[in-house]
């Protein structure tokens, strides 16, 4: 728009705010109003502000036109941005890094004297590839599929490399040293046996910080759970045949003196106490009442079951009843044939014969006692007339 065109409307009339409002509504700024979010009041306010701004600028008609142009340019810019966003290509890829690849080393042939090797692998005898091999490679390439020519060419190249390298050596020498040329052999000194850690968990952090924490109490985990047995590797070597034989188990202990104190010592009480202590070491009290009862039964303190009424009277079984019953012959020789003594003694014999609980010896002893008693009283008895004074 030229300046002349701009000047014309200014000369005619000054646009009034109502007209400005209409224009604004019609213009691009109306998008906001069209949204409907803004209230009518706000819209009016905004419009008024714009109107004021526009009024300041709108003194010359040129400024109106420039505002329109600006608006249009801004709009255009917006549109362009949107278009660019919509049809934006992905981030342009930077050129990929060229990483170094390992060189394609030439495989050295290992000439082994293998007779059963298959003919699939090329024999390094002839530099020229045999026509059979060529046909075989062609067939392989065809079977694999894909790019037949490429595969065939690759196979042929490998074949050629094999033939070139291994053609000269016809010997069957095993060059193992070639393998180990590039390798370095680690030579570690033989560690002493003591240095080998026996329990690695405790050697991890030997510092005291691990064992004792802030409490001052040793950590349970750090303490060894099990009893650490003496390392057999650290124990001193003992020569079992170095010293003299003690003869403890061969019965030669009698030669060895047991106690330094002589047998005839004045320490009688001490000796007795020592003996008692030894007995106590050997003897163990019964585990429970059952074993205690068994012990008592063996000692004879308890009844043996099944109960036998004649326990302790085993000897009486051998004695016949005639010895118990017929005791009259014990009166022979000393007892008078008649008289009160005889009467008394017969009663005694009858009573004893009826007694099954007495032993025969005791019965005889009773009779013997009476014999002695009456012998002492013989004179008195004679005076009384109990015994007949017969020659």
């Amino acid at each position, binding site marked *: 728009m030229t300046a002349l065109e701009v000047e014309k409307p200014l000369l005619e009339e000054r646009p009034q705010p109502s007209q400005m409002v209409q224009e604004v509504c019609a213009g691009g700024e109306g998008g906001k109003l069209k949204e409907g979010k803004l209230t009518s009041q706000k819209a009016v306010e905004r419009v008024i502000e714009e109107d004021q701004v526009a009024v300041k600028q709108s003194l010359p008609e040129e400024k109106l036109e420039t505002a329109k142009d600006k608006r249009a340019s801004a709009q255009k810019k917006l549109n362009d941005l949107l278009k660019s966003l919509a049809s934006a290509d992905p981030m342009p890829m930077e050129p990929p890094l060229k990483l170094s690849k390992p060189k394609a080393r030439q495989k050295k042939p290992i000439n082994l004297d293998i007779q059963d090797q298959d003919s699939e692998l090329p024999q390094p005898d002839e530099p020229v590839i045999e026509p059979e091999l060529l046909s075989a490679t062609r067939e392989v390439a065809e079977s694999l599929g894909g790019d037949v020519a490429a595969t065939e060419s690759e196979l042929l190249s490998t074949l050629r490399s094999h033939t070139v390298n291994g053609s000269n050596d016809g010997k069957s020498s095993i060059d193992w040293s070639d393998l180990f040329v590039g390798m370095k052999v680690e030579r570690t000194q033989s560690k002493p046996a003591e240095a080998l850690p026996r329990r690695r968990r405790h050697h991890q952090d030997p510092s005291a910080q691990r064992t004792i924490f802030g409490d001052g109490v040793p950590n349970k985990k750090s303490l060894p759970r099990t009893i650490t047995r003496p390392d057999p590797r650290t124990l001193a070597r003992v020569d079992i045949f170095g010293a003299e034989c003690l003869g403890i188990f061969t019965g030669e202990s009698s030669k060895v003196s047991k106690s330094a104190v002589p047998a005839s010592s004045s320490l009688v009480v001490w000796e007795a106490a020592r003996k008692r202590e030894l007995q106590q070491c050997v003897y163990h009290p019964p585990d429970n009442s059952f074993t205690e009862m068994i012990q008592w039964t063996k000692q004879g303190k308890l009844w043996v079951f099944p109960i036998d009424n004649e326990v302790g009277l085993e000897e009486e079984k051998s004695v016949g009843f005639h010895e118990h019953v017929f005791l009259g012959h014990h009166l022979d020789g000393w007892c008078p044939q008649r008289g009160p003594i005889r009467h008394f003694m017969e009663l005694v014999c009858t009573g004893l014969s009826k007694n099954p609980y007495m032993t025969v010896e005791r019965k005889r002893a*009773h009779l013997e006692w009476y014999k002695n008693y009456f012998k002492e009283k013989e004179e008195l008895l004679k005076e009384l007339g109990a015994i007949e004074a017969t020659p």
Partner: protein
Amino acid sequence: MAATTTTLLTRSFINFLSISSPLSLQVPLRSFHTSLTACKYPNWKMIKEVKHRKIVKEFAFERMNINALRKNKIIPPAIQEIADKEIHALPRKSSISQLHKRCMLTSRPRGLVTRWRLSRIVWRHEADYNKLSGVQRAMW
């Protein structure tokens, strides 16, 4: 005197040491006070009773014979009188009637159940715990 007492004490102690050992290792010794009598019975009265009974056992044979002479009408009375004197001469404690029974466990002088040699209280206790054979609570 002191020396003899000390020797006696040591001997008794030695005997105690040797005899207090387990019963399976008992060694027979002939000496006095070989065991602590006080530990065997619940009471000193009981210990006296035990001694009494030992004397009774010692003279039981003689006493029975003499009593047999005394307690009949066959033997001439003169001899029976002599027998009376003889039996009177024997120690008083040798008489069975002089014994006073006591409970074996508690040494109770009265209220005894003769067959079991126990006082009535102990007898009841043992019966309740089924320790007396054939004894049952009466119920009819």
